[in-house]
């Protein structure tokens, strides 16, 4: 079925030949939280003066965790499903009127979350009274076999063909049965889930007076690897840490971190031979670990009914001449050439595109890593990791290569064809060391990265400047170096974790508020804005020194090129020599670049035209170039441009 969001009416589409990583994304995931509601799970930690102390009961920490995960997944995996099942509750409610599954309460059905689900869950997390009504434990608790069979039914009916289906089980009870027969039933139900293709992920909680022992019960229920997906990568062979109630770090944080550590790529982007030399191949898999996360595209909403509804659309092809519906097989590809079309048969298209051989990562040779300057970047990198699936011994050879490259600071030059039909590229294959944070958690995996290199066709000319360009003096450079040394980021590294995407965050904050019909927030939280106060505090003095030196240096270097100076300096220069001697003042007023070219209008000229009411008589070219030089948007119709120029002039006038 067509995806609603990338189909818009009236939009002309030219078919892309390149298959992107969309198949990679469409691996859908369904997560069902099963949260134990029992007296011990509901017990709240003792009150404490310490602000960091635990406040949540285990159940409520699990609910908060589910709430956060739900919001996060709406952003990061908008097509994935999530559900929340409470078990051991006094009430039985599965939203279908059936009471087969005693003491199971379906808080949110397994589905792509709706705004209502988010709202409901938040109500429960934030409103204690509401929570107390539901979170009442049943006397005897629920049978774990019932819970597992209930999950089985939910997965079977709600997410029948999802390739990844996971049951997140949160409990503090490491032996939830009384007699062995009950355990046997639970064990068979767990195997049913396994045969169905579902994974049980256990999130055990240790209470102060009782430590959780997996081997008593759950090791008979949980299976080592994901059963359903042969393309899933090898899992890190560690079981989830047992969260402890009542320790320094809150239960919620421990749970979130456990869940995040379960994040494994659901499928490899490709499985390919890595050819080290003629007749020496090993197997590797590729994964996308870094990719720009975009917000959902706008879609069409049907407003003809009571409630707005999401519209799905499907496309059929029609021949323009006869209005006959055309099957995909009948379509022919044609290239425009010399006012006509050059066609090839589908077979020929295959021969043209696949003329470069089979998909492979082939090492051509090695170079020092210094042969990979940053300016050669053209696109994101792809992570690769060895796989024993096709070649036995791949892992050790890969490891030897990775360690050699790390040690000698080298890279491999590779010829890379990602899949049949993909264009061949040259890439640098660079080694990456494993990175581990203070808590012993892996933050960057060990492996290698494929970094696409540019071809000569992808290199753009350097925009040469006319005339001599001024060069710095050693003294001035030194003053700048002091500033650079003062403003190092922590540990001198860029850590993406500290910079959430402000645009994405704002988009979802607004969207969520609109979906829940709440008041819109007015202040975005933008962590990418430099900390000006700190910069001033740490560097104000050094910047002033730089300003003084700048005046000296400018006199020195500009003099030698005086004849070339033209009219470039004067009022509009940002770092103005005449102005510099004044202490602590390096910067002039916001500038308008009159010097940009002879045809360009100044603010005054444009204001005069505006005054005469002749703004709309200007050509679009004039308006656009005026706006562009002032870093204003140049999109839209002429009326928009005129309006924007007006706004600009008025803002300058006041």
């Amino acid at each position, binding site marked *: 079925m067509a995806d609603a969001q990338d189909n818009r009416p009236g939009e002309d589409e030219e078919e892309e030949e390149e298959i992107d990583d969309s198949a990679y994304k469409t691996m859908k995931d369904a997560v069902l939280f099963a949260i134990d509601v029992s007296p011990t799970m509901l017990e709240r930690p003792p009150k404490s003066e310490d602000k960091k102390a635990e406040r949540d009961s285990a159940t409520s920490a699990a609910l908060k965790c589910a709430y956060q995960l739900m919001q996060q997944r709406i*952003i990061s995996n908008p097509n994935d499903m999530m559900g929340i099942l409470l078990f051991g509750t006094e009430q039985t409610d599965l939203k279908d009127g059936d009471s087969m599954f005693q003491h199971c309460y379906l808080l949110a059905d397994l589905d792509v979350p709706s*705004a209502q689900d988010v709202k409901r869950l938040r109500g429960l997390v934030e409103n204690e009274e509401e929570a107390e009504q539901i979170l009442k434990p049943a006397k005897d608790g629920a049978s774990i076999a019932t819970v597992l069979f209930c999950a089985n039914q939910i997965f079977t009916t709600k997410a*029948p*063909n999802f390739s990844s289906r996971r049951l997140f089980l949160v409990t503090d009870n490491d032996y939830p049965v009384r007699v062995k027969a009950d355990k046997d039933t639970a064990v068979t139900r767990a*195997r049913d*889930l396994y045969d*169905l293709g579902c994974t049980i992920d256990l999130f055990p909680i240790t209470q102060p007076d009782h430590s959780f022992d997996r081997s008593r019960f759950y090791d008979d229920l949980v*299976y080592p690897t994901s059963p359903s997906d042969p393309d899933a990568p090898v899992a890190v062979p*560690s079981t989830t840490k047992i969260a402890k109630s009542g320790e320094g770090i809150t239960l919620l944080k421990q749970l979130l971190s456990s869940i995040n550590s379960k994040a494994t790529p659901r499928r490899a982007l490709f499985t390919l031979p890595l050819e080290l030399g003629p007749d020496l191949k090993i197997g590797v898999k590729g994964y996308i*670990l*870094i*990719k720009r*996360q975009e917000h959902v595209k706008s*879609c069409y909403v049907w407003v003809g009914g009571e409630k*707005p509804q*999401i519209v799905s659309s499907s496309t059929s*092809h029609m021949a323009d001449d006869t209005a006959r519906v055309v099957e995909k097989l009948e379509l022919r590809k*044609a*290239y425009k050439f*010399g006012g006509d079309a050059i066609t*090839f048969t589908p077979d020929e298209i295959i021969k043209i595109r696949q*003329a470069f051989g089979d998909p492979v990562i082939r090492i051509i040779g*090695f170079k020092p890593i210094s042969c990979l300057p940053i300016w*050669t*970047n*053209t696109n*994101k*990198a792809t992570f690769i990791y060895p796989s024993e699936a096709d*070649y036995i011994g*791949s892992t050790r050879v890969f490891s030897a290569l990775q360690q*050699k490259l790390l040690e000698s600071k080298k890279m491999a030059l590779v*010829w890379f064809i990602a899949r049949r039909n993909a264009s*061949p590229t*040259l890439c640098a294959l*660079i080694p990456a060391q494993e990175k581990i944070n203070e808590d012993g958690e892996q933050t960057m*995996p*060990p492996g290698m990265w494929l970094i696409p*290199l540019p071809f000569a066709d992808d290199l*753009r000319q*350097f925009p040469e*400047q006319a005339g001599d360009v*001024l060069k710095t003096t050693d003294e*001035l*450079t030194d003053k*700048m170096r002091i500033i*650079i040394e003062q403003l190092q980021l922590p540990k001198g590294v860029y850590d*993406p974790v500290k910079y*959430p995407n402000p645009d994405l965050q*704002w988009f979802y904050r607004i969207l969520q508020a609109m*979906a829940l019909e709440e008041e819109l927030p007015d202040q975005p939280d933008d962590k990418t804005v430099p900390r*000006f106060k700190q*910069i001033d505090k740490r*560097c104000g003095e050094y910047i002033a020194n730089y300003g003084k030196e700048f005046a000296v240096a*400018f006199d020195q270097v500009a003099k030698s090129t005086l004849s070339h100076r033209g009219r470039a300096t004067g009022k509009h*220069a*940002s770092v103005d020599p005449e102005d510099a001697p004044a202490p*602590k003042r*390096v910067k002039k007023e916001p*500038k308008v670049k009159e010097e940009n070219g002879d045809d360009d209008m100044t603010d005054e000229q444009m204001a005069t035209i505006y005054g005469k009411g002749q703004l709309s008589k200007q050509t679009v070219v004039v308006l656009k170039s005026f706006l562009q030089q002032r870093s*204003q948007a140049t999109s839209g119709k002429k009326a928009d441009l005129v309006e924007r120029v007006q706004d600009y002039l008025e803002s300058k006038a006041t």
Partner: protein
Amino acid sequence: MAGKEATVYIVDLGRSMAEKRHGRDQTDLDWALEYVWDKITNTVATGRKSALMSVIGCRTDETDLAGLIDVLEGYENLHVFSELKQYLLSDIRKLQEHLHPSKTNDGDLLSAVALAVQMIDRATAGKNGKPLKYDRKVIIVTDGRGEMDMGDLEEISAKIQHPDAPIEITLLGVDFDDLESGYKEEDKDAHKAENEHRLKVVVESCDGIVGTLAEAVDQLAIPRLKEVRPTPSFRGALTLGDPEIYDSTISIDVERYPCTMLAKPPTASSFAMRTDVGTAGPSAQPSNIIVGEDHPMSDLSAVRNQRVYQVDNLDEPGTKKNVEQDELEKGFEYGRTAVHISESDMNVVKLETQAFLSIIGFVKAEEFERYLPLSRSNFIVPQKANQPAQLGLSSFIHALYESECYAVARLVTKELKPPVIILLVPRIEVDAGWETLVDVELPFEEDMRRYKFPPLDRKLTVSGKVIHEHKDLPTQDLTNAMSAYVDAMDLSTFGRDDDGNPAEYAKPEDTYSPIVHRINHIIRWRATHPDPTLPIPDPPAILTQFAHPPPSRISSSSTHLDALKQASKVSKVPPKVKGRGKRNRAERDKPLSGLDIDALLGNPKKVDIDKANLIPSFKQALLASDDLDTIRAAASAMGSEIKALVKNSVGDSGYGRALEAMRVMREELVELEEPEEYNKFVRELKKELLAGQLGGNRREMWWKVRGSRYGLVDRKRSFVSDVSEEEAAEFYRS
């Protein structure tokens, strides 16, 4: 971007050009045409209206001066094939009919030049007769075996070198002697030697270029790069500190231009084969049909996309209803909730931003992870002719360079554009004499997918022990062999620069995009080779040059490679033995504890298909016994349940479950080498679906089966199947 140009090709079509000489297997003319066609199709491919061209044949059987000159004397045996104009595919086709060797050796090459000059002169003059700004070119290809009249030479030469309208002359000679390459034709006849000499004098007197055809054809192999005029993506100030609030801040006016930008091959559009050829009259043809003049491409018709919009029908759950496009408005999906935002409110979801480029802080170059950047790169240079900006940026570039740091900055290229974080890196090109900042985009928190992978230099056991010797870890032998091999295959000095000194091999500027040039090449090839029976040629060698390691490097490091092969002991996993045949409960996956669950249940001999637990019970039933009857019974029960799912489905609500059950059934039966059981079922299913026997119109379900490729299991998938691949394909079609 190139300006206007006018090019005239003078092609020698004399009888002597029909010879094959010096052991070549093509005639001199065919050889020459390789060059000419390449040039012409390259120009046509640009689709530029301002690239005018014409072709004049010299030593032709007919004479046609296209009215350029009134007198005929001295201009016999010249044929002007077209006026100066933009060439289209149809012109190429017409030209092809003319470019064949003639039966004569008469015809004066210099007269052809005079004709070309005259032609350019007329076509590139403005209304008042003054020459316009044009690149004027005459390209001559000849074997130098004709007759030439050297009179009027000065007049022509003056015209060619006219300061307001200079014409660039290039002459490519077939087997001309060439001092530079040291080529000298053996046994050259005196007449040709004389002509060669005269032509050189003539062309050189006009400041033109004389070259050999061999050289020119060689050059064709090097792909041509498309030059793009730099356009800035940002103009504004690079600041340190907030100038609005604080006194001490730095602000440098800069401009940002692309540094790398992926070149894209031309894209193909879809067309439908026309079905009405010969029936529709010309007047009935919509304008956007591709109309070729008289060649086979006119049987294509443009394709229009027809869209149908549907919403879930709330009155009848499980069904959809069509809605009209004018009832649709813009919105977004929040989870599965539709959030409707009217067109005028669309801006509320946008972060309000202003154009902005300001430093966040600095990082150490050494510590920077090279795999982080996720975009192409850009130059950041001082604003044009702004000297303080030049000095300011230069001090910044050098300070970064000397302190071995990069800057991290926030960039908003334009009002209302989302902010990005960029890395600013100094780049100083001493030889070329320029310096610049280069920027690349860095990931945000949301862009990082934190997946975990096991370590590669040690093994962890479940109990938490660290192991350093394991089959997945390299032995010392392997480590040494790898090290020696990597060093032996070094390419950093394997290449040669222009002066023949050792240089880096395969630098980006020496590599050409295979797909861009492959597609361009093949389009141009097809333009001059319309015969559909010709096989598609292989890509030019220069495009596959870097597909393999350089052979000499391989041979010089072969001992190291052998040692590495020895030490690594890699073996290919044999292709999966088709089907596991009989299966064994003991091989089943077990839970972490290793508990044997079947034993726990007393190894039941028979498991019934449970419709509430369909897939697990099916799998377990198959495992319970390898007896064929049991498998048949399970398959048949499974089949009935799948049909029941479809039959009882409200709308399409049961289709997903049915499909998943089909997937499992197909997979398991293939593995058990009983594909016939599945094929029997799916044949029945298809029949019943299409006959409406499963609770009404279930065509939709059939499409889904087809789309999922859950049809017949053919011989390719399972060698015991008696269904051929053709039959399996046919099954989907009918």
